């Protein structure tokens, strides 16, 4: 089992989609929202995702395929 902590950024239509609900139904993962701020056309969620490593990655890849941006909690790590 692994636990990943990620920041999801939603823009446009993706804001209206029940993405986190679907994560827990379509994949064998447990999601846990820790912080969030959602406006009508933009929002972010700090999320904990727990599951088998492969399944967790498959789930996050699916989220990304919806146009949701996924970042590490620490923001961009690659610095100039």
């Amino acid at each position, binding site marked *: 089992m692994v636990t990943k902590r990620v920041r999801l950024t939603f823009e446009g239509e993706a804001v209206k989609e029940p993405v986190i609900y679907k994560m827990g139904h379509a994949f064998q993962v447990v999601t846990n929202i820790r912080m969030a701020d959602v406006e009508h056309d933009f929002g972010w969620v700090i999320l904990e995702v727990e599951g088998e490593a492969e399944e967790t990655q498959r789930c996050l890849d699916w989220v990304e395929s919806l146009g949701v941006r996924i970042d590490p909690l620490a923001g961009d790590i690659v*610095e100039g």
Partner: protein
Amino acid sequence: MSFATSLLCRECGNETELAPVNACDFCFGPMEVTYDYAALRGRVTRERIEGGPKSIWRYIDLLPVDGEFVVDLGVGFTPLVRADNLARRLGMRELWIKNDTHNPTWSFKDRVVAVASSRARQFEFDTLACASTGNLANSVAAHAARAGLRAVVFIPHDLEVGKIVGSAVYRPTIIAVDGSYDDVNRLCSELADNRWWAFVNINVRPYYAEGSRTLGFEVVEQLGWRAPEQCLVPMASGALFVKIHKGISELAQLGLIEETPVKMIGAQAAGCSPISTAWAAGTTNIRPVKPATIAKSLAIGNPADGFYALKTMEQTGGAGVTATDAEIVEAIGLLAECEGIFAETAGGVTIAGLRNALDQELLDPERSTVAFITGGGLKTVEAVEGALAPPIAVDASVSSFEDAYAAAGAR
């Protein structure tokens, strides 16, 4: 002994012991070092600081490191230059340039890495790591060499060879990751969780970021123990901006200077300006962007401290401004021509941002202002080479020289 007492969550206030962690266990908010200010008040005096070494370590009482662990490359106490020529060109009364190109690896990153590497030694790490395309990697590799630590530097696979020379010379292990910048971000984030390594801007980030406060300390001391009225700071993650203000405020809190307002203006390249854009839109919700700018050292599309930078602007009556790539190149030339200081592209953002802030009346030209130049120009020669006049070609004769010299309108 350090006066650092604990880590405090910047979101929920949760307090934990000093450890190599960046995120709060409870809310995942970022952690920040806190100090025993009551004890510091009795210990830190102007005289004690002035009697210290000419480096950031003169402020060791205010840093989260015990003296025996210090990794000392002689970082900091860089020149604060009164820039009258540039001030005249911009119509300003009192302009100062804080010239951090004088650091051992020619950028302000030496300040943050000096503190991170020292604290890493105190935590008994044997490996210092980072992901970087330039300045940060240079500094991590140099400090690890000095400290006898192993260095591991992650770079995107398509980074030009010339960009890694300044790191490779110190003999770190360099890992070129086959993937996008986002892939490198993810990999390093996972490795920081899985390995007992000090990733300077991940698990030891709370200590790393504290090093930027020394810029605020130095400016105040070099101005004769007074705070500037306005600061112009380039922004990438936003941490430097926030910490310079924090450093100045702490000196007032400790009674070393009078408490006076300091207006904080942050500058970003127009091609990567998530913080300045949020400020202009009047929101604290930062929208991540894909960087597209020549100011690579500021190319952070998803800034970790963006929210706090916006809060600092709000608190100080400051603002966020931007500079286009053309303005950046022009500003590098202006600074060099007026003051003899060759800055990298981030310095171009500072000077172009200064001019734009004046044009937009966000800065008062009558008030004392410090502009921060955070890296040396030899790091980004390619950005300006096309904008410079070619040499005047002559034969090896006096007449050829006289003709060509006169034809070029040179004096």
